[in-house]
């Protein structure tokens, strides 16, 4: 086992374990904190995949903003800070079965794909993926339009969210 694989497995264990905690934890704040752990694990995966920029964006956006937002939301939508009673609804058994089936189905389809166990090639020396990504995001013959559309979506969502969440003045 190479160090890479070791780190990956460690990371995967962290992701899976904390993801399971996210969906099963009885305390919602703990769920949100476990989500942070999952997301951090995913960020490490990005780093392993040599997408350093994405790894850091993952941390900034998810842990720095989204997770905090979740914790805020959890705290804002309750009268008592502690959760009581079960946090799963009556369908959880069926849901679990379905989730397993989904995993099985995905695994089945993926494993029958020819590129399933492809190996990565080294990123050619002299190319800077970060610089390329920067150019790709603002170059007209690459992704400037989707990028701008995404930013407009974000703006619209922001305005919408503020409007929805603002208490109507009486």
């Amino acid at each position, binding site marked *: 086992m190479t160090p*890479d694989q070791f780190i*990956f497995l460690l990371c*995967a264990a962290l*992701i*899976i374990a904390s*993801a399971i905690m*996210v*969906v099963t934890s009885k305390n*919602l704040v703990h769920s949100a904190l476990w*989500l942070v752990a999952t*997301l951090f694990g995913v960020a490490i*995966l*990005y780093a392993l*995949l040599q*997408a350093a920029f*994405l790894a850091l964006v*993952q941390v900034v*956006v*998810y842990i720095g903003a*989204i997770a905090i*937002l*979740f914790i805020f*939301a*959890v705290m*804002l*939508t309750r009268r008592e800070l502690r959760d009581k009673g079960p*946090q*799963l*609804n009556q*369908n*959880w058994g069926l*849901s*679990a079965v*379905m*989730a*397993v089936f*989904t*995993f099985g189905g*995905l*695994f089945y389809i993926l494993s029958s794909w020819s590129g*399933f*166990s*492809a*190996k*990565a090639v*080294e990123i050619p020396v002299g*190319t800077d*993926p970060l610089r390329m*990504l920067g150019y790709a995001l603002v170059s007209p013959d*690459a*992704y400037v339009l989707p990028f701008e559309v*995404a930013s407009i*979506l*974000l703006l*619209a*969502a*922001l305005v919408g*969210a*503020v409007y*929805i969440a603002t208490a109507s003045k009486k």
Partner: protein
Amino acid sequence: MSIPLSWYLVLSAALFSIGLFGVLARKNAVAILLGIELMLNAVNINLVAFWRYGSTASLAGQVFAIIVFAVAAAEVAVGLALIISVYRRRTTVIADELDLLKW
């Protein structure tokens, strides 16, 4: 880079399924959104992995991942705003109790 692509794919499939379970089985609406976040992250793992294991010169995977970030942020903002708004009216965020949409 001695890790085969399959590891990432299986991990992301597992993460996706866990997220799906969260969406289907959690009572609290915020927790449902947490599940959706897990699913989106699973998708992102796939995108970045495909970028790395495919042609690294074409940046579609990374760009899509960035767009997914934006979409996720938008989704969380709107979703949580909706939840807070619902809470203000109904004083509950338990999805099962929000069952007026029936005949």
